[in-house]
């Protein structure tokens, strides 16, 4: 597409990047068809092409963000289905990231919205605070209905709905330290501890560590790591996100220098997408650009890494697994086949639900901030999954697990929990 920027505007490196992205879009409209919000709302303003146009218009005119643009950008799930579809290779992710930064810098949100977002940014990335908040939520659940009746408080109602009824004990978490390989060591990896996941489902990383060490891989959970920053990154709070990125880059580089790392293993694909983007996020920081790029290159989803270990084919288990590909997995990281191949090799019958490209509506904090659209997407996702009549649902992202679990009675697990079980680990508790 034609663009209209002055040389002064293009002197801003963020604008320059966005201009390049916009130039690639040929306005063909293909992306609209696979965008979950367009399919749900039927308005081009809530489609990738519409959002790209809104962003283009705002940036070209050097305008501060306004309520309309913010509405439509806020409704974007950042699922990146559009980037999978786009034949022109339009890098929508970095364009919308820029738009969110611009919104954060130039737009004052209404009070309740500011409050909700502030609370989320102050709680979710910190496991201690998050745990406390969830305990409080258990007490608050009876008020969910009440909260949802008052529009600005709806997100708090949604939060209460999503909070699990009971929390695993903190002791179940795999704390910092080195987990040595059983037998001869064939590799050494770091594992991202994460923020919300270890509070909600400590069994995921526990299974990962058990499986990897059993397969001869030393796993280190480095001390000093923080939330990957994806949560605040998607809110446009760039400074906070970059701070988190720098901290983690330092921690992992320390490990690389100590004893080498073959990979940085991530068990939540949402985090994986962001960590793989550290190189880009920190490109303008001369002290970190190169280090961050190194870290990004080492970041691997657990299924990506397991594929390199060449696991043997196991006997059929007579269990059908519906594999739900998280958006951050299939669109963000373009990992589509590996998890299914692993599950098949592990002896499960694997089903692909229809409309697999559509988001389940979880999308980080989306299910809290946009409960209505999120609820519709959840219902659609659950319908498609249940149509495959699975015994188990498997996926690679904690957000999807929490979201889908509130819509179905079918047990939902992280892919790695099933792989661990199939290769000598314990049977996941929900299946017994």
């Amino acid at each position, binding site marked *: *597409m*034609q*663009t209209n920027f002055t040389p002064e505007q293009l002197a801003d490196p963020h604008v320059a990047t966005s201009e390049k992205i916009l*130039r*690639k*879009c*040929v*306005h*063909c*409209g*293909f*992306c*609209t*068809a*696979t965008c979950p919000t*367009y*399919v749900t*709302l*039927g*308005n*081009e*303003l809530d489609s990738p*092409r*519409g959002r790209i*146009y*809104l962003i283009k*218009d705002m940036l070209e005119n050097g305008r501060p963000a*306004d309520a*309309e*643009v913010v509405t*439509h950008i806020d409704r974007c799930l950042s699922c990146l289905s559009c980037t999978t*579809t*786009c*034949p*022109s*290779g*339009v890098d929508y992710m970095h364009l919308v990231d820029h738009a969110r930064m611009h919104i954060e810098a130039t737009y004052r949100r209404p009070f309740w919205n500011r409050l909700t977002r502030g609370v989320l940014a102050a709680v979710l990335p910190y496991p201690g605070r998050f745990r406390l908040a969830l305990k409080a939520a258990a007490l608050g659940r009876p008020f969910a209905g009440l909260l949802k009746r008052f529009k600005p408080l709806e997100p708090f109602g949604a939060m209460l709905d999503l909070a699990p009824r009971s929390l695993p004990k903190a002791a179940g978490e795999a704390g910092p330290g080195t987990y040595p390989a059983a037998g001869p060591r064939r590799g050494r990896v770091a594992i991202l501890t994460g923020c919300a996941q270890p509070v909600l489902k400590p069994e995921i990383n526990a299974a990962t560590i058990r499986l990897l060490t059993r397969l001869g891989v030393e796993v280190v959970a480095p001390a000093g790591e923080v939330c990957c920053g994806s949560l605040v990154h998607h809110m446009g709070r760039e400074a906070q996100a970059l701070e988190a990125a720098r901290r983690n880059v330092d921690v992992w580089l320390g490990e690389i220098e100590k004893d080498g790392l073959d990979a940085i293993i991530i068990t939540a694909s949402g985090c994986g997408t962001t960590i793989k983007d550290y190189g880009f996020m920190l490109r303008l920081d001369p002290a970190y650009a190169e280090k961050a790029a190194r870290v990004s290159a080492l970041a691997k989803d657990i299924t990506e890494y397991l594929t390199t270990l060449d696991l043997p084919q196991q006997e059929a288990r007579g269990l059908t697994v519906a594999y739900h590909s998280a958006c951050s997995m299939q669109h963000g990281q373009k990992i589509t086949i590996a998890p299914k191949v692993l599950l098949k090799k592990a002896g499960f019958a694997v089903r692909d639900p229809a409309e697999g490209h559509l988001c389940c509506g979880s999308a980080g904090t989306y299910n809290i901030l946009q409960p209505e659209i999120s609820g519709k997407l959840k219902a659609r996702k659950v319908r498609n999954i249940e149509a495959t009549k699975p015994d188990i649902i498997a996926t690679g992202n904690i957000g999807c697990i929490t979201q889908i679990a509130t819509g179905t009675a079918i047990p939902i697990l992280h892919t790695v929990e099933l792989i661990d079980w199939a290769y000598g680990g314990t049977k996941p508790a929900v299946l017994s």
Partner: protein
Amino acid sequence: MDQIGFLEPRPAVLARRREIVADLLDLLPEGCLVHEPRELVPFETDAFVSYRRVPLAVALPETTAQVAAVLKYCHRYGVPVVPRGAGTSLSGGAIPQEDAVVVGLSKMARILEVDFANRTATVQAGVTNLAISDAVTADGYFYAPDPSSQLACTIGGNIGMNSGGAHCLKYGVTTNNLLGVKLVLIDGTIVELGGKALDAGGLDLLGVVCGGEGQLGIVTEATVRLIARPEGARPVLFGFDSSEEAGACVADVIGSGIIPVAIEFMDKPAIEICEAFAGAGYPMDVEALLIVEVEGSEAEMDAMLASIIEIARRHGVKVVKESQSATEAALIWKGRKSAFGATGRIADYICMDGTVPLGQLPHVLRGTAEIVEKYGLRVANVFHAGDGNMHPLILFNANDPEDAARAEAAGNDILKLCVDAGGCLTGEHGVGIEKRDLMRHQYADVDLAQQMAVRAAFDPQWLLNPSKVFPLEGRPAA
């Protein structure tokens, strides 16, 4: 640059903007009217993105009754209306004008009925082309016309443009697969044309409406023909040393009476673009490629392929490559169908859409290359060769106005070349605004006057999509 003009906005309509918006807000449910100036900007164009006009408002009705209410209102107050499906038109058919209300069908996207006994599907106009096939695949059927944009374009837009696609060589274009429509006329009257049978009694008004480019009424529902999936289908790649040889081969295949399901053509630049995107395994050491798809039983496919290969040999075919698996076949088509979008990776483009008699393919391909070279531009050719429907993609730099003007001028010369070779201005993308001013090159005044008379019979005030199709000068007084 000699820009294509739009009708001057009607001052009386612009002056009433606020009342019109307020009235439309009353007529439509919440969230179904876009009217904030900034929110209107994304609707200013379609896939013919070099032309833009911000509309007065965008209505996104949810029911036929709401469409009728909006049209009735616009008719009463003389407000122009531009129907919009997915906005993928390559001829600017869905580009609004400043005094127009866009009526978008994107919220009417439900499949209403699938009737396997009669092999029909009835869908709302905003359903995408591919969604129809997706809904019936499991039962062994598909909807045949397959524009490359089928993922996104709507059946309403397909009817508007009488769209075609790769597989139309065998199955015909939209008009051959459309059985009935529910149509809202400009005064708000709702009529039904056709039905579930292949031929309805009386005048073939359905045939008139199909290809009407949004000027005769707004389609809100369509009944289309479903076709049973063939036993098997196999795309085969034929590589040639020159575009002319490939073109001559197509003419010979069709001339010998063989009708494969599809014959698609790509020249070297197009092959490179598509291969880079899809990794489909197209041969890279050839100057031109044909994708020929045959279908039927294994024996039928083998027999047809053998005769095609024999003809191709006579034209010095260099590579013949059959797809080895369903995945490979899918990639071959993915690459082809993404060709235009993938071109966006390397340059801006405008896509031409002339049709020529098959015997003229080599001549027109050569002429196209000469024209583009004369203007100092580049071209990629990827098109439905079996139908003689050419799509030269003229590559240019949209941020350079002179380059853009050259591209447009080259495009006009190419279309004239097609007409002069005994062909037609448009194969499937419609006239829109893009080819409007070339209509006189193709049609005599008397032909145009007859067409305009038919158009005016539906919409005497020329309110529906009025800037399109017919040259602005010489129209009858509304």
